[in-house]
């Protein structure tokens, strides 16, 4: 099965690079751009995260949707754009799996954006460790370790 992810469509990484370059054109007006090195690093990390989360990606992927959703966030300074985008990408795939595939890409990205700009006030740690974790658990119908609900 992992061979599916390992080989994917020819040029999975190349497609990621192209999409990230396209994102630049879209986000530049918001003062957010990625350097060539950052694009390469994000594309590599994207491939790694797909492998780590046991997923295979098709179609256009999620870079454009993520970049478009978050480019107007007041909590992403230009110098933090690349690492933030990378962490958001990781959280996205983790949550897709943790939620038992019960949420669409658009719904998840919308939730992430609302939470990031709202309760999280730009904190990626809070977004990942608290809001997304709890939300995924509720989507799966309350599955999880005993006592976690009480701790929250």
């Amino acid at each position, binding site marked *: *099965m*992992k*061979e*599916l*992810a*390992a*080989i*994917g*469509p*020819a040029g999975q990484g190349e497609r990621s690079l192209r999409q990230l370059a396209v994102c630049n054109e879209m986000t530049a007006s918001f003062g957010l751009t990625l350097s060539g090195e950052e694009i390469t690093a994000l594309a590599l990390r994207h491939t790694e995260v*797909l492998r780590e989360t*046991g*997923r*295979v*990606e*098709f*179609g*256009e*992927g*999620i870079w454009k949707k993520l970049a478009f959703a978050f480019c107007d966030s007041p909590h992403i300074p230009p110098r933090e754009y690349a690492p933030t985008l990378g962490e958001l990408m990781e959280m996205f*795939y983790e949550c*897709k*799996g943790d939620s038992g*595939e019960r949420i*669409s*890409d*658009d719904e998840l990205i919308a939730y992430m954006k609302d939470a990031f700009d709202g309760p999280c006030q730009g904190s990626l740690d809070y977004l990942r460790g608290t809001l997304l974790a709890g939300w995924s658990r509720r989507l799966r119908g309350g599955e999880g370790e005993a006592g976690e609900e009480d701790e929250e």
Partner: protein
Amino acid sequence: MRNKEQYLGKAGEGALFNPGGAGWGMEALWPLLERQVALYTGGESSSVPLETAAALMESVVLCLGAAGGGHPSLAAALRAGQRALWQKTEETRTLYLRLRAALRPSGSQILRGTVEEIGNFFIWYDIRFFAQSIPCMIDYPLLRPVSEEEKGVHFITEYLCRMDWENRFCRCFKEGEVRALLERERPDYQTLPLNICEVVFARALGGVLSDKDPVGGALPGVDPDALAARIVALDGEALAQALQRGTARLCNRLRLWGTGLRGYFGAYAATLAVRVQSAGENGVARLFAAGQL
């Protein structure tokens, strides 16, 4: 772990999906898989778990294998393959309904339950995305199990064919005698996953081999001396052939003419040679009489 070349090698060389000798590399199939994922997720997810992708791909390959040749594209072949599997499913449903109406489980709850459960296959079978799936529980063991290499409707079709043959064989004998034999030799047969045809076949074959042909639906007795004279001195291939000839004669006496049925029981009989040989002269008659082969 396989390397990439084993999947994307030249056509016919190490290609992963090579049903029927046609080699399709992963790159050729990827667009089909991509479309299937989009349909499966309703366009709402750009990624799926590896297991899901693998299952969707397995379904694509199964459908392509059913498509035959002469299609202008893999996409057209996929559609043709899905139609072919749908057609086969409809034909198998007809077989199922006929078998269910004619089934004589002789008290076996597992047999009756399995046949009822197979009805769920036709409700839940998903040709579109998971053509390899078998969405029902199969508990009743056949004389000769269907290979697990068979997938989806192919498995169910073969299973029902074999069950139909076994049912037709058992119906050649009076229900009361079959039940009496089962209750004596397999007291738990009603609630345990035991094949009932095995016992009946062994008794009937033992009778024919000892020159006691079945008459009027009665299960024949087994003449130990005649049986021993015919087969005890044989071993290996000669014994297997004697058992197969006996099976052919039995089918003739029962007027069971289908080549599939005769081949099924003949192949099963040949597998009994080892046990017959091990029983020796003193035990072979009991083996056949009690269906303990």
